[in-house]
């Protein structure tokens, strides 16, 4: 059941439908309701009436992510009367969607029914919906051989929505009408199909077709669920969240033609249903022990579309890994730079990190050899193109001043990088976590060069450069009187001194000096300024720009926390890692097991529940991936040669976890974790896990 009778969303990869609780769509130019595929809205109006009456929802059943069943009755919701008719509207994703209408006559009299569906489309590009822009091409609607064709054409860019019905129907250019006579206790059924098309000048429909229709989608989901490890544990909410995460990752997988029948994760509903370098990489990393195939496709697609030249509109450089690829009208006419857009400072080093981590889990040496030159080009980018200040750091400054991204790190909103007093630094900016990623990339690439590329000299050089970077970083970024790393260096090499969650990623990358510095970083992360009780805030409470519901300046991001916890484990801070895992996993209960993109940074003791961030994307791939990475962290899973090492550290409140059939180069392996003794329990963390909402 959906949690409330609000909007209902079903999806299949980057295709999705958002409707009201009755299944109707009445989009305004600026809200993301309607049927969307490949960044284009194919339906903006879809309203069902029976004998000229609108219908209202009794309940909605969305058991499967790709399917919703609306139980609706004629009349206004406000005046309830015993309905003589009830309608079941079952909608399933299929090249658009398929809608099965069933009408039941509960009355004692026969009835004549006029069933009408009004249909229309504005063919808005997703960016138009986001930014409310106008259309430059021509829309049309025409009836042709028992079908209604809604179309949009701008030069050679041609998109159509084709509406057909299973039985006799009368089509006009604003919808279709079906009529029937229904005896007492009678039942009538009809199926209406809405197909979204990308029309080429040749007339060919280029819309990718993949796992179409209910049976395919169900088989695909079953296959994925069967292939993933089985989780047993004594804290039921974790099992629920685990299942929800896998289903959401299944739902977000899509297969553009460039992926050749393989799939990769779309980043998040509704605004980011496309290929994103950073999101795909981080999600693939989180999911490696569970759905390793995501990493292989992500690496291949990102390698294929690696930058090849300098282009200011796309912020492209040779060797740079893409930020975002879109498929809508604004990209096609280069009004937007996403063809693809390369403005990201972290995807390139992270690509190398994923490549190495993927090999360590899968043993897929072929892929490491196949993309050797792309990896070398990525390393070259780090040294040559990203070092904008000549100080030996990965920095960013957009060259597309109109539509390029100001901040090209994961916190990509305009105000995410600030000084303690709230001032914004000048460009180029070198954020700290990007230096960590670059360090890790070089260390890992050295292993690949030595082991797979037969180039020990290169490996030596990379290791030397990594060591130099680490030393330089610990000198230039360390703020001695605050005992933490700067969030960034500005264009003049000045320390941007706000306390932020970015320093948590440094542990994951291994660039933090052991001992005093590592202790200090952990102290900050777990202190009251940063840790809300649910998780680590994006920005410390005492910072000038702190706002508990500011997108990157105070909210808690589950994915961010999952990497911070991984980093804590890496440096041996097991308890702290478990505490973060428990906080975030506990919060999932308040979102029906589905972690949102972000939630408010309010103190847990104050609100007692995690405050929903108003426009958070959900499901979002790296939020769905977070519980998977927390599981890895709690179990201490680490590949070692051809074996899987298990070294668990569970939070208080969970006494045992079993993860069975973990895929990898070892075939399948099991991991068991049990709290060791009563003595441990005494010293365990304060019980953090709640009994759930309510």
């Amino acid at each position: 059941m959906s949690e409330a009778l609000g909007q209902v969303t079903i999806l299949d990869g980057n295709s999705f439908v958002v409707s009201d609780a009755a299944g109707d769509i009445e989009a305004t130019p600026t809200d993301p309701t309607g049927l969307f595929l490949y960044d284009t809205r194919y339906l903006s109006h879809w309203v069902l009436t029976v004998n000229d009456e609108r219908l209202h929802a009794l309940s909605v059943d969305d058991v499967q992510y790709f399917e919703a069943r609306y139980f609706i009755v004629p009349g206004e919701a406000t005046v309830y009367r015993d309905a003589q008719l009830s309608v079941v509207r079952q909608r399933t994703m299929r090249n658009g969607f398929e809608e099965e209408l069933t009408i039941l006559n509960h009355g004692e009299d026969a009835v004549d029914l006029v069933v009408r569906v009004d249909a229309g489309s504005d063919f808005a590009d997703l960016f138009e919906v986001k930014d409310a822009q106008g259309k430059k091409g021509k829309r049309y609607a025409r009836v042709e051989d028992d079908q209604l064709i809604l179309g949009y054409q701008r030069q050679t860019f041609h998109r159509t929505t084709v509406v057909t019905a299973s039985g006799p129907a009368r089509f006009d250019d604003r919808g279709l009408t079906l009529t029937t006579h229904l005896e007492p206790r009678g039942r009538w059924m009809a199926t209406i199909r809405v197909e979204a098309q990308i029309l080429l000048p040749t007339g060919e429909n280029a819309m990718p077709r993949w796992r179409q229709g209910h049976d395919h989608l169900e088989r695909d989901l079953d296959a994925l669920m069967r292939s993933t490890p089985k989780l047993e544990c004594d804290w039921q909410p974790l099992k629920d969240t685990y299942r929800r995460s896998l289903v959401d990752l299944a739902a977000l997988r899509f297969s553009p033609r460039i992926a050749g029948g393989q799939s990769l994760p779309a980043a998040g509903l509704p605004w980011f249903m496309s290929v994103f370098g950073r999101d795909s990489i981080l999600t693939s990393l989180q999911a490696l022990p569970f759905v390793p195939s995501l990493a292989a496709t992500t690496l291949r697609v990102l390698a294929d579309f690696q930058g090849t030249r300098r282009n200011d509109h796309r912020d492209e450089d040779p060797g740079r890994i893409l930020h975002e690829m879109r498929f809508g009208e604004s990209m096609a006419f280069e009004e937007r730079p996403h063809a693809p857009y390369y403005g990201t400072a972290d995807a390139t080093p992270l690509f190398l990190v994923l490549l190495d981590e993927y090999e360590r889990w899968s043993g897929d040496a072929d892929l490491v050899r196949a993309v050797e030159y792309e990896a070398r080009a990525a390393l070259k980018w780090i040294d040559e193109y990203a070092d904008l200040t000549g100080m030996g750091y990965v920095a960013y400054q957009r060259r597309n001043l109109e539509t390029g991204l100001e901040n090209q790190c994961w916190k990509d909103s305009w105000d995410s990088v600030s000084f303690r007093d709230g001032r914004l630094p000048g460009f180029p900016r070198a954020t700290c976590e990007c230096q960590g990623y670059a360090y890790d990339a070089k260390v890992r690439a050295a292993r690949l060069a030595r082991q797979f590329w037969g180039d020990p000299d290169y490996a030596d050089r990379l290791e030397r450069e990594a060591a130099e970077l680490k030393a330089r970083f610990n000198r230039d970024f360390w703020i001695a009187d605050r005992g933490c790393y700067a969030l960034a260096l500005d264009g003049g090499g000045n320390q941007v001194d706000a306390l932020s969650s970015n320093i948590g990623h440094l542990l994951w990358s291994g660039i933090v000096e052991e001992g005093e510095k590592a202790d200090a970083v952990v102290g900050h992360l777990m202190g009251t300024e940063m840790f809300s009780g649910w998780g680590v805030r994006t920005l410390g409470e005492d910072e000038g720009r702190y706002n508990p519901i500011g997108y990157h300046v105070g909210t808690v991001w589950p994915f961010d926390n999952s990497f911070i916890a991984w980093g804590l484990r890496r440096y041996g801070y097991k308890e702290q890692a478990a505490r973060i895992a428990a906080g975030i996993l506990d919060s999932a209960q308040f979102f029906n097991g589905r972690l949102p993109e972000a939630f408010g940074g309010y103190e847990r003791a104050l609100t007692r529940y995690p405050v929903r961030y108003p426009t958070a994307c959900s499901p979002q791939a790296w939020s769905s991936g977070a519980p998977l990475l927390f599981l890895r962290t709690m179990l201490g899973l680490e590949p070692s040669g051809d074996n899987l090492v298990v070294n668990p550290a569970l939070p208080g409140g969970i006494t045992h976890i079993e993860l069975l059939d973990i895929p990898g180069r070892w075939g399948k392996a099991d991991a068991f974790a049990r709290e060791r003794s009563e003595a441990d329990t005494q010293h365990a963390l304060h019980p953090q896990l709640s009994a759930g909402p309510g």
Partner: protein
Amino acid sequence: MVHSDRVEEFFDELGRRGHEPLLDRLNATGRFEVLGGERTDEWLVAVRGGYITVTRGGGDADYVLRGARHDFDRIIHGDAGSVAALVRGTMTLSGSNAHVRFGLITRLFAGAPDSRRVWVDDPRLVAEGQQDREGAAGGTHG
């Protein structure tokens, strides 16, 4: 002649490149159909083990990339993106598995040859590149 332009120069240059490490994974032959007014110019571009052979004229191919001369010109010189051209419908790509190769195909249109070699960080290739250039200088191209 109107058609003796940057598109022609591009295909000439393509055939002289020698080893392109970033094309190692593209083992395929493509037919490039360049439409201009009444005529269509065709080139066959075969890539094997990172080495490119270009032949003027048609023939069997694994994939076909077709578009107006103006669009090819803009892509070759970096003014337009090839993915955008495909989504817009000004260029069409056909052939089984053609789209899976598309990212690699677009590398044929990468920037200046010197930068291509330099941005793969491998001294062995720089040495190889020098040999290629020396070989080309003494060859019959021109």
